[in-house]
């Protein structure tokens, strides 16, 4: 049989985002896959070098449209570590609640992408709707629906409005009521199960070797989560579980995501219960006269896709000397994906890619 070279993306129905994979196929079987990023390179890291510490704050969230909040968090943490800024206790809790909401919103968005791609349109529409309910909460808290520009160095930008925690609880309850519907139509649907079982399998050793984090690693049984490994915000103040699965295939990855959403809801309830009183922002220096002493910092958070890190260097000036993001999709999309696609079927390319939550804007920054 003849070997063919096939371009999968950036214009392809199975592709989400501006990303491309070059496949060598023989019939339906993939012999070799080469990730081809670069369609979405916007030069954020370079751009950050010519903006002041404060001006970068509305910028970083735009690196990844699906996950702006963890980007904000990681930037704020890196600046706080570099400049030695203390964050008020309440701000830590508010940040945690906000980040868990963001995790659920991001997972719902991912769920939409995944179910939509596999043809489960009903669940996809529900996921979009439920995500919108969380965006309503974000809108009320921050004034923006997608780019919230909320977590900034020193704390958060505004405190919860009156009665906001009740609204969170109410919204999450109303979303929670739909879990059986999701199970019936999607997660426990035999069609979905057959479509994803034993697809894109990764063993724990492979995941660790190739730089797999987040669901890719947790679906192989390793409970690796930065919230536990290196707690930030208020994650060390409350107890929560890390959902894992053993099989390491696409199905177990998506089930980890489902369980994570449910765990996040419980976590938010616990955080709301323990939410301390006080202020949520310690003033940072005047943005026109803010220099940070020479030094470097590396901080990491658990985004909805896995470990997200930021390496930030200051040369003592009013702008970062260098900023570099370590994003989960980078290793998932460039290393793990290439390996896993070898020997897979063409019809499973999108399936595998989205089950690993590969998100193009994280790869090209």
């Amino acid at each position, binding site marked *: 049989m003849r070997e063919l070279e096939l371009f999968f993306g950036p214009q392809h129905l199975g592709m989400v985002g501006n990303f491309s994979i070059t496949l060598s196929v023989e019939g339906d079987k993939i012999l070799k896959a080469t990730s081809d990023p670069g369609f979405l390179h916007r030069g954020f890291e370079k751009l950050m070098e010519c903006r002041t510490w*404060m001006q970068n704050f509305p910028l970083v969230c735009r690196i990844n449209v699906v996950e702006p909040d963890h980007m904000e968090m990681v930037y704020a943490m890196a600046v706080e570590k570099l400049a030695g800024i203390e964050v008020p206790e309440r701000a830590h809790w508010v940040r945690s609640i906000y980040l868990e909401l963001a995790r659920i919103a991001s997972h719902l968005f991912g769920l939409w992408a995944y179910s939509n791609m596999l043809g489960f349109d009903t669940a996809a529409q529900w996921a979009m709707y439920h995500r919108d309910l969380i965006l309503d909460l974000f*809108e009320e808290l921050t*004034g923006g629906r997608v780019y919230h520009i909320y977590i900034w160095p020193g704390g958060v930008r505004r405190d919860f409005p009156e009665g906001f925690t009740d609204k969170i609880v109410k919204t999450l309850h109303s979303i929670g009521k739909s879990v059986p*519907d999701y199970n*019936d139509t999607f997660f426990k649907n035999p069609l979905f199960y057959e479509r994803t079982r034993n697809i894109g399998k990764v063993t724990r050793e492979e995941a660790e070797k190739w730089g797999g984090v987040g669901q890719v690693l947790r679906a192989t049984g390793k409970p690796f989560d930065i919230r536990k490994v290196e707690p930030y915000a208020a994650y060390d103040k409350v107890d929560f579980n890390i959902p894992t699965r053993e099989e390491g295939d696409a199905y177990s990855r998506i089930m980890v995501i489902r369980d994570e959403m449910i765990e996040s809801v419980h976590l938010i309830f616990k955080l709301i219960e323990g939410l301390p009183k006080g202020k949520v922002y310690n003033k940072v220096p005047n943005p026109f*006269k803010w220099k940070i002493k020479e030094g470097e910092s590396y901080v990491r958070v658990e985004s909805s896709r896995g470990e997200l890190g930021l390496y930030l260097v200051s040369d003592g000036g009013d702008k970062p000397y260098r900023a570099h993001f370590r994003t989960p999709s980078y290793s998932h999309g460039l290393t793990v994906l290439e390996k896993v696609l070898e020997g897979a079927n063409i019809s499973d390319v999108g399936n595998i890619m989205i089950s690993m939550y590969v998100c193009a804007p994280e790869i090209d920054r």
Partner: protein
Amino acid sequence: MDKKTSVLSPLKALKYLFKKPKTLRYPFELKEPAERYRGLHLNDWEKCVGCGNCADICPNEAIVMKEIPGLESGDGKRNERPEIDYGRCCFCGLCVDICPTGSLKLSRDYLHIHFDPGTFKLLAKDENTDKEHFLPEKEYSILKASLTHRRENYEGFSSDLEYALFNPERVQMSQLSPQERKSSFIEQVKGFSASEAMKEASRCLECKLCEEACPAGMNIVDYVRNLWEGNLEESVRDIYKTNPLPGVCGRVCTHNCESACVLGHRGEPVSIRWLKRYVVDNLPLSEYKKVLETEDIKSTGKKVAVVGAGPGGLSAAYYLRLLGYEVVIFEKLPKPGGMMRYGIPEYRLPYEALDKDIEYIKSVGVDIKCGTTIGEDITLTELRDNYDAVFVSTGFHTGRSTGVSGSENSHVFQAIELLRKVTMKEEIEVTDKIMVIGGGDVAMDISRTLARLQTKKFGAVNVTLSCLEARDIMPATPEEIEEALEEGIKMYPGWGPEKIIIEKEKIKGIVMKKCLSVFDEEGKFNPEFNGEEKKKFECSMVVEAIGQAPDFSFLTEDIKEKLEYEGRRMKVNEYGQTSLPWLFIGGDIMRGPDVINAIDTGHKAARGIDKFISRGEKK
């Protein structure tokens, strides 16, 4: 392995066919944006001062400041307003959080659709400034929504001081307590420590409204920035570009800059005056010449005479000397400094600080001849003949009298004369009940000086002050009034003297009448009294501090004839040059009423004199 459901179970989703759809049929079904929504900008033009901080912070350079003809400029305002380019704006709202006045907000409007990108620029206004485009809810239609079809009272994300990007609170200056102050002439303000100065300097937003308000146009933003960066020497150089008396101005300047500071709108202005003081107090005099690069001044061989060693004269002399002129200052009083030494009390301006500034001016080669009175020891004509140009800044050293009955009594004094005597360590009369008439800074100075002398002599303060002006329009600086009150001085603003009661050549009291208004409709001084409402105060000494006048007795008739006048003042050009080309004036006799104005007139005259001499114009 999880238990799987039946292949038919997804069909349960069909139940939603019989439920009300969640989708909103936009634009017929609207969703109200949240209260904090970050939409299109709103700007209250009444509150906005055009400082431009929004444009500076904008990460996308979406905001430019547009000059608006017809808007007033000056006094902490600029006739510019922000124009936002919505092709660039990312709605982050940093502009709102930096806005010192709180005029800039974001609204809940967010729609604008147009084929022409040119229409994406908007001079942000709000419903008060733009009634035409901001419509009540009834007239507003979402179908027409755009940058110029907006809803009124639709405020979204707005400024909150707690989360503002600037610090509205200044670093508190440590001062002596009123109790400590009353009993001595020790300087009241202690000055900043290094860390306090840095912290205070770091509050400056660099909008330069202060520089526009400073009569001398000092490079405030530069010297504050250099101070913040720890570069004191550069900071001193910035200061000396326009002000050779920073030790004085750092203490007693009327600080128009601070009144103009944008941070003052919702907080406290940057302590620019104390920062200047910190800079110069922390550089030893021995370093000055090296730092300011004045060790070797090339001489032009030309000579200039300066009359009066006050701030105007010293400033002119210093800058003339820098240009290479041989400068001689003639001063009537025993020591240089003019009103800075003989008018301002020691607790506000210690002599060491003044001496440091003057010592430096002397050290660059300015010759000061004290105890020389023009018109007596040497005439103006002689100066004209022996020098290439003459600069006169003789100041306002003669007190004005109220002229009411009894004011000719020997226990009625002029504030300015008493202050001069205190400086010269002469004995002055201090009784246990003193009445001070006047509401300006001189009145405060003499009241507080007398309060100190009373404390020393009687152990208690009994000074009463009254002035024509009501409390809110008293001409003295607010903090001076505050501090005088703290020191136990009683104040009766809004009263004018009618007569001083004298029995056997001794003052028994004073009768005051209620003043209704000080100025007439044309803005001229023309007080109106209510003759029926009167008050009697007991006192044994009266001090008049209602203003000072110049003394032009040194002008001879032939010179007077040739001078042209505008009203009561001599006619001068921008350099202080009179109609006699060799004669320049400055200080209070040209433009008052404070040190910084005098410094500016001196500096300008120096440039004028340089022009005049170097062009070789005829005397």
